[in-house]
Structures are given as structure tokens and as C-alpha cells.
């Protein structure tokens, strides 16, 4: 059968070994037709040819195409590794595709810094990021180690946690940081001399010039580009910058809109403003967000807003219900007065803007869910999809209530691998640690959910989150919460259509259905077919974004 319509310029059919659509009506296919960046037809080659298309691109014939992965909680700061060398404990791809090996000891760190210093003019700052000493069994990093790398440059090692930096003696001298410095957060050796540790941004800011370099990177165009490349290399086709202030600055917003619109920008972006300040400024923010939204284009959407309500579990700053943390001092604090949360969220809810609220602790999830209940009593918006993001320690009762209220959860399931052992042994203990990010229970209850990496907190890429949710293994080989493991098909939907749903973008992305963007992740293997423990190792060829192939630059 042939079409009566002539083909349009640029029409193309891609064939593949297998296409996984994330569309339960037609879960698999072998060909997909694209017109104007959208899915024209998906099924067999014959189905697709009904549109009269003669251009058939067979380059993916031995590959697996899936509905493009959607990341509903990551940060543009992912691109900071375009500027600052990465020195983390788990190796990682840089935005330009280079693979950087793990830094597994203090000596290796010093060696890296020495190499960097050798290429720099003396006096010019060396800022490196992503250092993660939590697994390091060598001596605690101090200024003395860093002095071995160079005494001619200021060195600022920004740790992965974001809560600590270690500097060398050059920095200590430059800013007159000596014994008995009045700032809390300056670390000392036993003899009273500073050891180079600067805890929390307040102390890090003592190293003024180096700290300011970190701050500037947020708005640097290289950072945004680096974000896009990192996401594409990881096979993500829609990536969220969750919680920015772009809408506050016309200049910045304009740059972001222009950068993302370029054909070379390799990912569709959801830009999510963060709720700031007190209730009196909120109406103004709502109107700014609505105005900014009118400038959205195909590759830049502003579907929801974010509120940050507490800290992190490993930092002991998440607000956790009784009985609290098993070790360490409880630093859990709400970032907004709980009784003010309803007032702060009401204008968004009323304006029909979805809300993603950062809740790591159980207490925090409770406050957010109660606030949404109140808002729904006042104003019946049934399709709100308000989302508890992180939701790591959410209780079963909270999940049942959230489900009844039509809410959604975005689990930080990578934590099981990256910090699960710490949670089991130090933060909340084995019972609650094994119930963290409870995907299977959410399914039993019927609560809608997705996964996120919070990149750069954990590396971008959904094969890893799927792998973590399916296996729940930890670096030393235990299975943390076997009853919360889920099937690979469920995990695949979590990182595609369910993530799109939370962003109110499921009519545009998240599955391969006729009329939606032709966004696909291109894989060398089928994650359903490989051994469950090998899901995260499935090679990513790249993506197809709006019908246009975009090959990963990641070195294998």
C-alpha cells in the first residue's frame, strides 16, 4: 500500500533491531518514521512506508532504540566539569566525552594536582571538584598533602558533598587563615594550626577568589553546554535543571533560551525555577514564571517550579521523623517555616503550575503532602501532579496519602549504590536504609514515580538508576532492601513516560507515540535482555533528538 501524500523534505524512517516505545499499546517496534522532528509512525517498516517516505536510514539496524530517557531532577552544574577538573572516587565521563579515572587515594589526587600546576602560571588558582573521601581509607586530606603538589598556586579542592573544601597553605596564607580564626568551619590540626579544611560555604568563602570562581560557573555558557553534552552522552533526551533563578534575570534567561535553541545543543531542557523568599514576593514570582514560560520553545520548557524544604541525609540535614539518626548529630532544619509552606505554594497551585518539592527526610515529606492536601481542599486542581522529589525516607502511610492526593514521587534510587552502606551503618540504620526509595511498595500502593540522578550529585544517566532499582546492590556486594527491587520494564517506564508525566510533558516526550517528539535513546544492547547486573554497562551510542541522530562523544 502506498500513500496518496507526497513525502515532506526531511522525512526519514529509522530501522532498528528493536524499538522500545514505553507505549504499552505497542511496546515494541522495528521502524519509526519522523516528520518535522515528530513521530509520524512507529511499527514495522511497512507501517511507516504508508506515508510514502522513501528515505530509509538503516544505521541503527543492529542497535536498540528506546523512548528517550527523561531526567526530571538534575542540575546545570553538571557542566561545571567543563571548567573544573574532576577528582571523584568513581570514574566519570566529562562533558567533552573524556573519561576521567577515579581518584582512589590522596597520593593520586596530589599527582593530578601536580600535573595541573605544571601547566599553570604561578599564582593562578587551581580549583578541582568532585573529591569524595568517604570511601578513601588513606589519611584524611589536609593542606600538607596539597602543598606537596604545589606551593606556588592556590589550590581549592571542592568535595562532592558540596559541604567541604580543602585548601593548601598558599590559600591559608593568602587570606590570613591562622590559629583561632573566628570563623566556624575552619579545621585545625591537633597543634592548633589550620589543616586546610573549610566546612560549609561560609568558611569556603574565606578563600574568596577561588570560591567566587565556583559561583560564577553556574551562569557560564560553557556550563550549560557541558550540561547538554553530558546528558546526550548519557542517552538523556530531556533533562531538567531543577531549581534555578534564570527567571530572575532577563539577560541570563535570554542566554539560556538562545543556547538551548541552537541545533548544536544536544538535549531538550526543562528549566525549573526555584521558589525563593517569603509569601509577599510569591505573586510576583508566579507572574515572572508565567512570563518566562511564554518564551519557551521546542527545546526549552518551563513546566513546573521547585521548592527545597530540607537538606541531605548523609549530611544529617534532612528532617527525619522519630527516632531520627542513629549516629551523628541531627542538623535537620526546614528551609521554610512549615506553617508557611501552604501560603508559599498556593499561588503556584492556583495558577496551575506543578510543584516539585525537595524532601529527603520523612518529616519533610509529611509537611509537603499535608500542604498539598490543604491546597486541594481549597482549590480542586485534579491534574496537579505535584511531586515529592528525592522522597528517600517517605513512609508507607505518606505514600498512601500522596497517592490518594494524586501526587507523584521522584526517587533518588542511586543512593542505594552510592551511599546505601553509609545509610545502613551511620545515618538511619538497616531497617530504614533498606526501605529507602521504596519503588516496589510505591507500586503496591499505586503511587506514580520516576527516578533521578540529581546530576552532578551522581553521574547523569538512567541505565544506572534502572540498574540500581532492579538490583539494589551496594559497593561491598550486599542487597539493600531486596523487597523493594522492581522489574526492568517497570524501571524503564520510570525513566521515560513517568518522568515526563511529572514534568507535565508526557504529551510531548517520554514515549514513542504518533505526534510526540521523535526523541530516542540509542543503545548497543537491550537492557531487558542483558543480565540484570549488566544493565548499567549497556553502551550508549547517543540519542536521536527531534529525529536527528546525535552521537555520544563519550570515550568507551
Amino acid at each position, binding site marked *: 500500500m502506498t500513500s496518496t501524500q507526497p513525502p515532506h523534505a526531511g522525512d526519514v524512517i529509522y530501522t532498528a533491531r528493536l524499538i522500545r516505545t514505553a507505549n504499552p499499546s505497542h511496546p515494541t517496534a522495528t521502524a519509526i518514521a519522523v516528520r518535522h522532528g515528530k513521530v509520524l509512525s512507529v511499527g514495522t517498516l511497512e507501517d511507516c512506508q504508508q506515508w510514502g517516505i522513501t528515505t530509509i536510514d538503516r544505521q541503527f539496524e543492529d542497535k536498540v532504540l528506546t523512548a528517550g530517557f527523561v531526567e526530571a531532577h538534575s542540575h546545570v552544574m553538571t557542566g561545571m566539569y567543563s571548567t573544573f577538573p574532576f577528582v571523584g572516587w568513581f570514574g566519570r565521563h566529562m562533558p567533552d566525552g573524556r573519561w576521567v579515572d577515579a581518584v582512589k587515594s590522596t597520593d593520586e589526587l596530589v599527582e593530578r594536582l601536580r600535573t595541573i600546576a605544571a601547566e599553570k602560571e604561578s599564582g593562578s588558582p587551581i580549583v578541582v571538584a568532585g573529591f569524595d573521601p568517604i570511601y578513601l581509607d588513606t589519611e584524611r586530606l589536609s593542606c600538607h598533602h596539597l602543598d606537596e603538589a604545589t606551593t606556588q598556586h592556590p589550590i581549592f579542592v571542592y568535595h562532592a558533598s558540596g559541604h567541604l573544601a580543602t585548601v593548601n597553605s598558599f590559600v591559608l596564607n593568602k587570606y590570613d587563615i591562622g590559629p583561632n580564626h573566628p*570563623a566556624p568551619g575552619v579545621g585545625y590540626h591537633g597543634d592548633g594550626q589550620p589543616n586546610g579544611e573549610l566546612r560549609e560555604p561560609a568558611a569556603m568563602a574565606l578563600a574568596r577568589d577561588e570560591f567566587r570562581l565556583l559561583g*560564577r560557573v553556574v551562569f557560564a555558557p560553557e556550563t550549560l553546554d557541558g550540561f547538554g553534552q553530558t546528558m546526550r552522552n548519557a542517552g538523556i533526551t530531556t533533562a531538567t535543571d531543577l531549581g534555578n533563578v534564570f527567571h530572575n534575570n532577563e539577560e541570563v534567561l535570554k542566554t539560556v533560551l538562545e543556547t538551548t535553541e541552537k541545533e548544536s545543543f544536544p538535549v531538550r531542557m526543562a528549566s525549573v525555577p*526555584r521558589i*525563593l*523568599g517569603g509569601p*509577599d514576593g510569591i505573586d510576583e514570582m508566579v507572574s515572572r514564571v508565567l512570563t518566562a514560560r511564554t518564551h519557551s520553545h521546542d527545546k526549552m520548557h518551563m513546566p513546573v517550579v521547585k521548592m527545597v524544604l530540607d*537538606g541531605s541525609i548523609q549530611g544529617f540535614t534532612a528532617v527525619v521523623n522519630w527516632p531520627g539518626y542513629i549516629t551523628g548529630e541531627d542538623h535537620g*532544619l526546614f528551609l521554610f517555616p512549615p506553617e508557611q509552606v501552604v501560603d508559599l505554594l498556593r499561588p503556584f497551585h492556583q495558577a496551575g503550575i506543578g510543584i516539585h518539592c525537595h524532601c529527603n527526610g520523612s518529616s519533610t515529606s509529611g509537611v509537603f503532602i499535608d500542604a498539598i492536601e490543604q491546597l486541594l481542599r481549597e482549590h480542586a486542581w485534579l491534574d496537579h501532579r505535584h511531586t515529592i522529589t528525592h522522597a528517600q525516607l517517605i513512609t508507607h502511610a505518606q505514600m498512601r496519602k500522596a497517592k490518594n492526593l494524586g501526587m507523584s514521587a521522584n526517587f533518588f534510587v542511586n543512593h542505594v549504590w552510592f551511599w546505601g552502606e553509609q545509610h545502613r551503618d551511620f545515618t538511619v540504620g538497616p531497617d530504614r536504609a533498606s526501605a529507602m526509595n521504596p519503588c516496589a511498595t510505591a507500586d503496591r500502593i499505586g503511587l506514580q514515580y520516576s527516578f533521578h540522578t540529581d546530576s552532578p550529585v551522581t553521574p547523569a544517566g538512567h541505565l544506572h538508576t534502572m540498574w540500581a532499582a532492579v538490583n539494589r546492590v551496594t559497593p561491598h556486594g550486599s542487597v539493600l532492601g531486596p523487597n523493594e527491587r522492581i522489574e526492568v520494564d517497570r524501571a524503564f517506564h520510570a525513566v521515560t513516560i513517568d518522568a515526563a508525566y511529572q514534568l507535565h510533558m508526557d504529551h510531548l516526550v517520554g514515549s514513542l507515540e504518533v505526534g510526540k517528539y521523535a526523541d530516542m535513546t540509542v543503545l548497543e544492547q537491550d537492557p531487558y535482555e542483558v543480565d540484570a547486573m549488566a544493565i548499567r554497562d549497556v553502551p550508549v551510542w547517543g540519542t536521536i533528538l527531534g529525529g536527528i541522530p546525535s552521537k555520544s562523544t563519550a570515550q568507551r
Partner: protein
Amino acid sequence: MTPTPRIPVLVIGGYLGAGKTTLINNVLSSATQRIAVVVNDFGSVNIDASLIRERHNDTIELTNGCICCAVGESLADVLFSILDRTELPEVVVIEASGVANPAAVAAFAHIEGFHHLGNVVLVDGTHALETSKDPLVGRTFSLQVQAAHLLAITKSDEATDSVISEVRSIVSSLAPSTPLVLTTSATLSSLMMNVAPHADSAVTATHTEFSTTTLSHVSAQDEKQLFAFLQNFPPNVVRAKGIVELANGDRRLVQKVGSTISISQTELPTTGLVLISLK
């Protein structure tokens, strides 16, 4: 290297509704110095714009509910931007958010160019009993009180004496050695801002709870001795300010806010020392 003079930073904290905004408005309207006010809640501080223009004060909006977390938009960046100005303020007043720990906010006051004057924490006389016991924010309340160098119970005229005395005992048990005053926002504002020899009447003339002493000849061998001298003031001295000469002729601006003492370099002439005490 001669140390550059450092701008004093006063942190005003306290749970939501404790009267921080009123206090800041009072500070702006009564102060004679050039003040930069850093507010946490944009829009929530209904600071009278005309006051700001007339007095060349300004407010700077912080862009985050938690002013001490996000890199690139932290309080540090706000303070750096203050130093970038051509006309520096004489004092920086930071309003901590209603749930912030003032100690975490004050931690920023030690970056180059600033010094920390103290944390004044307000306690809402009408709500403190509930807030202190609230399962969600009781701990926040305690941390705020414990971070104070000077505590002030506000709205005491709106609560019964028995409630106020209960609030007093809760607050004192949390922070037994921190001076506690029961006063209006206007008085508190003068107490912070308008302490100077010969102009001290602002605080004491209309208020019977305080008395003022001026020590006109204070001299000290060095900073260490000066610090020890100030430390030995009786605990009812809630505020002190003045410029003192050291043996080598250098001068120091001395400030005491409640339980905290700060000493900084100054070029200004000696003034003697004004002490304001609770009667």
C-alpha cells in the same frame, strides 16, 4: 600589611513572626549610620522605600530560603558585592530567615572585609510557648535561642505576665548566660545602632529598664588586655561601644552586643566607652 577596616555585621534572627521586620524598619529610620540591610525574604520585608532613599541605606535581597547553601547565590556573594561598591556601608544588618539558625548566617560574617558584631535573636512573647514545643520546629526555636548573643522578648505587651514569665524561663533555660531584654523594637533598635558618648540619651531617657555609664578614660596595653577588661563586665551590661587607645597609640573600636565582644581597627579618635546595663 595594615589590616583594612572591617565592616561590622549584625545578625537579627528569630522565628517567623518575632518582629524582625519591625526591628529592621526601626533601625533604618533611627540610625545615623549608612546601613546595608540584607534581607532573606524578598518582598516579605515591607521596608519603607522612602526611608532607604533618604538615608542612603539599601537592602539587598537574598535569593534563597536557605541563605547558606547554594553556591553562587549564597550570602557570601551578597557580602562580596557589598565590598565591590564605591561607598561602603558603615554597618551591615542581616535579617536571617524565620527558620534559619543565626549562627549559620553569622558564619559568613568572618570573610575578609567584615567582622561579626553579634546575633540579636527575637522571641515572640505571644507565640514562643507553642513554637518551643512544636514537634516540627521546636528544635529550630532552641537553636535560634542558643545562637543569640542578646535575646529580646517582643510583643510582651500583647501577652499576660504569666505567659511572659513562662517564656522567660524557657528562654533562660536554653541560654542561661545570654542577656535577655524585654523591650520594644524602637528601644532595641537604638540599643543596637545609636550608642555613642553624649548621644546615649536615645536609649535611656525614655526607658527606665536601662542605665548608661560612660567610661571616659579607658586605656589598655594591647588587644588582649582590652579583651580581658571587656570580658569582666558584669552580665547585666547588654551593650557597649566606644573607641579606645592602646599603649602603642593604635585605636580600636570596641563593641559588645549581649554576650559577645568584637574589637576592630579604627582610625577615628578615642571616645571613651559607653556601657548600657539592665537596671
